[in-house]
């Protein structure tokens, strides 16, 4: 057994410019999920696009991860990744993501966890959940003009 798979890595260490896209170009939910996964493929973080897409869609079929106030956090466990992966996308125009409050989603966090890394996944999700409780923070991120600004906002928070 390799206990040392899990490194102490703060969420901020995962958020770099290459996993942030501003703005997203998609217009609907299936497209935006694909676009978010493609960010990770382009960044070299994910190789099996189809496996990830299947896992994300299976989770979305149970219930949409579109939350309130324009935030969506699609997430799942997936054999295609060995460590926690995150992609962030901003869609200032808003995309219908079947959210709880019916409002269009503008700030997307795609989170993929390895099946044997439940702890880091839960911790990262909890950290994101705390962050997005701040409407001011969400507004600032949604207004960001580029990936660097988004990363800076996360570092400064």
């Amino acid at each position, binding site marked *: 057994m390799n206990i040392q798979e899990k490194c102490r890595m703060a969420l901020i260490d995962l958020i770099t410019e290459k996993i942030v896209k501003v703005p997203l170009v998609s217009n609907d939910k299936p497209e935006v999920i694909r676009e978010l996964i493609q960010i990770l493929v382009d960044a070299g973080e994910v190789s099996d696009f189809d496996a990830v897409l299947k896992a994300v869609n299976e989770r979305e079929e149970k219930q949409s991860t579109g939350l309130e106030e324009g935030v969506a956090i699609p997430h799942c466990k997936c054999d295609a990744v060995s460590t926690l992966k995150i992609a962030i996308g901003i869609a200032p125009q808003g995309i219908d993501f079947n959210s709880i409050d019916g409002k269009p989603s503008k700030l997307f966090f795609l989170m993929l966890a390895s099946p044997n890394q439940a702890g880091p996944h839960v911790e990262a*999700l909890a950290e994101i959940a705390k962050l997005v409780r701040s409407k001011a923070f969400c507004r600032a991120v949604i207004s960001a003009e580029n990936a660097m600004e988004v990363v800076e906002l996360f570092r400064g928070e």
Partner: protein
Amino acid sequence: MSSPIKKIMVYIDGTEQSVTAAQYAICLASFSGAELIACYVVNTRAMEDLLKARIFLQDEQLEYEHDMEADGERYLNYVNELAVKKGVSIVRKQSRGSVHKEIVDIVEQETIDLLVVGELSRIRSRRDEFYDETERAIRMVNCSVLVVKDEDRVWEIYESLV
């Protein structure tokens, strides 16, 4: 004079740093004859928050809880193997709840003299200062705390232990 340290607890969270802390705690227990407890906490508080925020579904929460319990067993068994190799006995303790609160409670219940933890992650943002569970435990426990650093040196000490 008898040793002031009779009970040591090491907090294990599955990180490399916590394994290094466990190796050091095993050495300390061997040298001092202190009783050694290894503790892992399933962070059910975080999962409850995720359920409340509707990020998790009920069955998803249960699935993750089950996964984290299994992770905890694996981590504690690994640390137990490290201790057994050096002839040190270790009590494995798995708890559930808010991580820092559980650590504080176990330290009190078990009348721990020394809490051993792994090196803390670098502070990268303001929220790290508020939300790092290990750091919060360090601040709140009523016993002395040892933060273990220098993985290579600790490994040498552990390896040299007969």
